[in-house]
């Protein structure tokens, strides 16, 4: 194995090098552009500045959009947690027969692209008994469906890994009521896994553009909609926003990874 790795190394190293360059160049360019004062006909920018970032943080519209994004994403994820935790628990523990049916439901948001979902949502809720088109409510509902696969998978997998059925059995044997067993035995055990899917869902929603723009684009500005509007105005400012957004997502995924590791250690140890 060792010799083979060394023998074929150069071609593969070159290949991976090219791939990484290809994947990282757009990121790098945006990063440099955000710090460049002028960048026209040179390989690297001639003069640097952090002015775009300070301009960004002084922009009321940016702060508003950031706040709206955080606010909407948190509400949607919290709502999803409150609804999904008991539902997935009940299905996994008491209705294992329904699991394949659930898998079908959970894969639907993948198969129905955002633009299609938006068409249906607008038609269903712009008239009739529930008229919520253009409000935050319809967006939160749409967000709930977007993160459904991540939440279901995350909670379901954690329940399976901690052997929830057996745990519950032992807790009940020791005299705990069902609710007490769920809250004080199951919940603390699956918490790291639930946290992981929560953060993942949050980062997915933070990057959501289609549904937001089509459902409430005119009324509610999230960070993505704001970025879209800014692209035409100032390239440097827009790259500063894009980079800050990307770093935020990166930090989130770093936390995700740490949590994943810790959860794994918890199970092994």
């Amino acid at each position, binding site marked *: 194995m060792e010799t*083979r790795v060394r023998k074929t190394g150069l071609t593969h190293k070159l290949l991976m090098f090219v791939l990484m360059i290809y994947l990282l160049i757009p990121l790098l360019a945006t990063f440099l552009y955000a710090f460049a004062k002028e960048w026209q006909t*040179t390989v690297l920018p001639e003069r640097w500045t952090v002015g775009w970032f300070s301009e960004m943080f002084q922009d009321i519209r940016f702060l508003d959009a950031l706040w709206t994004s955080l606010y909407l994403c948190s509400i949607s994820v919290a709502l999803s947690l409150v609804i999904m935790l008991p539902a997935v628990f009940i299905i996994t523990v008491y209705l294992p027969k329904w699991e394949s049916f659930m898998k079908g439901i959970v894969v639907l948001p993948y198969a129905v692209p955002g633009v299609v979902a938006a*068409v249906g949502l607008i*038609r*269903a809720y712009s008239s009739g008994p529930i008229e919520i088109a253009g409000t935050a409510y319809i967006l939160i509902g749409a967000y709930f*469906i977007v993160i459904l696969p991540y939440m279901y998978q995350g909670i379901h997998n954690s329940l399976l890994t901690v052997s929830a059925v057996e745990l519950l059995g032992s807790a009940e044997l020791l005299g705990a009521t069902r609710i007490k067993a769920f809250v004080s035995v199951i919940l603390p055990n699956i918490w790291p896994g639930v946290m992981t899917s929560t953060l993942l869902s949050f980062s997915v929603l933070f990057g959501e553009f*289609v549904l937001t723009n089509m459902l409430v684009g005119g009324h509610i500005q999230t960070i993505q909609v704001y970025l879209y509007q800014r692209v035409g105005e100032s390239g440097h400012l827009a790259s500063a926003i894009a980079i800050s957004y990307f770093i935020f997502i990166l930090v989130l995924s770093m936390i995700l990874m740490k949590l994943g590791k810790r959860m794994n250690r918890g199970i092994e140890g």
Partner: protein
Amino acid sequence: MKWRNRWIFLGLVPFVLMVVAFQFAPILSMITGSVRAEDGSGLTLSYYARVLQSAFYLKAIKNSLLISISSSIIGIIVGLICAYSITRFSPRIRNRLLMLSNMTSNFSGVPLAFSYIILLGNNGVFTLLFKQWGWNVFGDFNLYSWTGLILVYVYFQIPLALLLLYPSFYGIRDQWKEAASLLGANKWQFWTTIGIPVLTPAVFGTLGILFANAMGAYATAYALVGGNYNLLAVQIGSLVSGDVVNEPQLGNVLAVILALSTLLAVYLNHKMTQRSQMFNSNSASRQVRKRRTLRRPWATTVKEEL
């Protein structure tokens, strides 16, 4: 389940309500909207007929199909080569490479289109730089056209392809190679009789996901070309949100067509996943896989381009 514990199923009620209200109701509404006559009486297929007779919308469907198929095929070829290449590295570097590639898949939609505009747009850094150096490689390259779109689509397809294909390459054990060579097979024979048949379901399954991903991609195209390029997803958006003439019925028809294509692609993936499970159907390897998915939850979740 004893009868007195039936109340526990009340916990399912909010979940069912949300799924019905925001998943099934919109799909149903879209389908009925595409076949209901404007005055609200009776069924009609006239909107479908109008779409299928309109050169403009047929062109949009054709463009979307072409761009999705070509970007998926390029993505899968690059993904296959790179996934194989990655297995040749030591585990530490392998994880780093996968992490980097996964990281770039967060960079999608509006920010991605924007960074390509910085690089290769009309006043892009590379465009100006190459003009000054007198290079003519990008002479007639236009980011806001077919080639530009392909370039950007391929960018978000590759990390996804890599992420989905890598596990199946990993599944080809070194022991299999050793066993095959003990039985007298050379490298070529190993790949044609064992390697490729094992990989085929994964390749087609991944192709399905990539295709659905590209068909549904709206943000990137919208931010890059706006209404200037005739794509299915962009047309649906403008028909419904009323950028141009407001004709929601046609939007419903186009949305049904788009949904059918992506559903078909995801169904293909589903079938292929079932088939590839055939190769590691014994419970031991399934256990191993479960552990592995746990160890890297961030690497196994596929984030689609929205």
